């Protein structure tokens, strides 16, 4: 199997599993229990918190563990909006966010908030001027992702942070697609809240984190026990949290080298596909992107058909967000970038990862060329 869908999920690193096993075997205590056996688990959680903080350039108290990236996004949006409900009801976001942000914005809208979606350019980069115009006196949150999951296009978080800071508006960045891929430092990057998800960086599924800069107003989303300083109730997923920290530490140690290794592989893949497939394009090619992602447009054919045909050849790819699998709607990200619905429908995302080898990409290029030809032969367009 050639796996080119690392933006959907990644294999659990065997070293990460190894780090988790003690907490699935011997040290299964409840971190909130008063006896020493429980405190072993507590110590593991707090060690993990310190490791995450160290990897991401923040303080341990600024790390909240969650049940995944989606929960981190929901907590950031709903938590800040609720904490600041006395100040205003307006949220600014972009048109290309992950559904975990966009649908949460829709839910907030249904509950009486006003939401402004800033447009993006044809290159997939959010329009800074549009964000600036949107920020108003009653704006309580700006939420723009760090890198888009479908195109890999990086957003100008430093500039966005400056805009937000100048107006005293908390800024949340969904960094699910950059954590572990790029070196990140909360202290210098700019956002006040940062979401990440373990399974996107060779950690376990069902655990994530929200970094919350000291002083950022936040209400809990899950209420109950006083876990996570009262900001996220529920018995801690100790093994998952330990795995997240281990995965992050491993990824951060190699992020730069991996980025340097993957960018030329990705670029060569793109060059070869563009050379071999008439009419093919790369969405977001003009913008800075995370080095592992390419989103290819093949006009005249359907992306899902390409993905299924590749699957039958042992290659895992996707049409975009895994969440929208089978969704007949064209990608909201690509249409926001100005792609026609049909063009958006003809797109395929390949996302490389730690296990990707150059030889695999040669196989993929050949398969893609073949598949596109066959599908074009039967296409009615």
């Amino acid at each position: 199997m050639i796996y080119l869908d690392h933006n959907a999920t990644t294999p659990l690193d065997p070293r990460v599993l190894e780090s988790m096993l003690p907490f699935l075997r011997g040290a299964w205590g409840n971190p909130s229990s008063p006896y020493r056996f429980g405190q072993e688990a507590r110590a593991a959680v707090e060690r993990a918190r310190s490791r995450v903080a160290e990897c991401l350039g923040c303080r341990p108290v600024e790390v909240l563990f969650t049940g995944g990236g989606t929960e981190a996004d929901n907590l950031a949006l709903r938590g800040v909006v609720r904490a600041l409900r006395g100040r205003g009801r307006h949220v600014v976001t972009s048109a290309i966010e992950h559904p975990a942000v966009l649908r949460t914005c829709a839910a907030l809208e249904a509950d009486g908030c006003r939401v402004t979606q800033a447009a993006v350019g044809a290159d997939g980069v959010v329009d800074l001027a549009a964000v600036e115009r949107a920020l108003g006196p009653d704006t309580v949150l700006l939420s723009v992702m760090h890198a888009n999951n479908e195109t890999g296009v990086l957003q100008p978080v430093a500039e966005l942070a400056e805009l937000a800071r100048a107006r005293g508006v908390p800024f949340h960045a969904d960094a699910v697609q950059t954590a572990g891929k790029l070196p990140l430092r909360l202290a210098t990057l700019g956002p006040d809240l940062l979401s990440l998800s373990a399974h996107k960086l060779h950690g376990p599924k069902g655990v994530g984190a929200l970094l919350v800069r000291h002083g950022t107003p936040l209400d809990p989303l899950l209420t109950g026990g006083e876990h996570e300083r009262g900001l996220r109730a529920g018995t801690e997923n100790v093994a998952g949290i330990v795995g997240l920290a281990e995965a992050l530490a491993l990824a951060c140690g190699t992020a730069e080298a991996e980025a340097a290794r993957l960018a030329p592989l990705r670029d060569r893949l793109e060059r070869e596909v563009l050379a071999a497939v008439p009419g093919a394009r790369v969405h977001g090619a003009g913008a800075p992107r995370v080095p592992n992602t390419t989103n290819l447009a093949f006009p005249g054919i359907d992306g899902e058909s390409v993905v299924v045909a590749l699957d039958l050849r042992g290659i895992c790819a996707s049409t975009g967000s895994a969440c929208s699998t089978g969704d007949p709607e064209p990608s909201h990200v690509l249409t926001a970038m100005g792609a026609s619905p049909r063009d958006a429908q003809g797109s395929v995302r390949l996302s490389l990862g730690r296990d990707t080898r150059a030889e695999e990409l040669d196989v993929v290029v050949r398969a893609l060329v073949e598949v596109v030809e066959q599908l074009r032969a039967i296409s009615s367009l």
Partner: protein
Amino acid sequence: MATTPQSTPETGPETQPELPGPVLYYNETVLEHFTRPRNVGALPPADTDGFGLVGDPFCGDQLKLWIAVRDGRITRIGFKSFGCPGAIATSSMLTELARGRTIDEARKITDDDVIEALGGIPERKRHCSLLGVRGLQAALSDWEARQAADGTT
């Protein structure tokens, strides 16, 4: 945003497991018709007695379907499709079901017939099978219109 469990359509009586998540779960027959679709291609204009084009011109799946009719029967049929594997496979199966049938029989082919012949299709892809049936209906209507036109000329 309100969602109630009961308002979610369920998967029905197919053999595939009940999959409430967003998923594609094409069976072997569907995949076979997707990789080796039957009756692909346009009929030559001279041989075409009816033609159907369905699907929005700018957006979503599209199907073109050609039929040749002799003695009230579909003797030849061809299609071209822009769409997902479900669209391609259901169109392919539809042409198999329609070939050799009388006009009346062909008129009565439903999307459920197509789905049944394929042994099921994911819930989210049921709409695909409608495209084929509508394409065939359009071609049959085109054939009827041509017949009427021939009669009046």
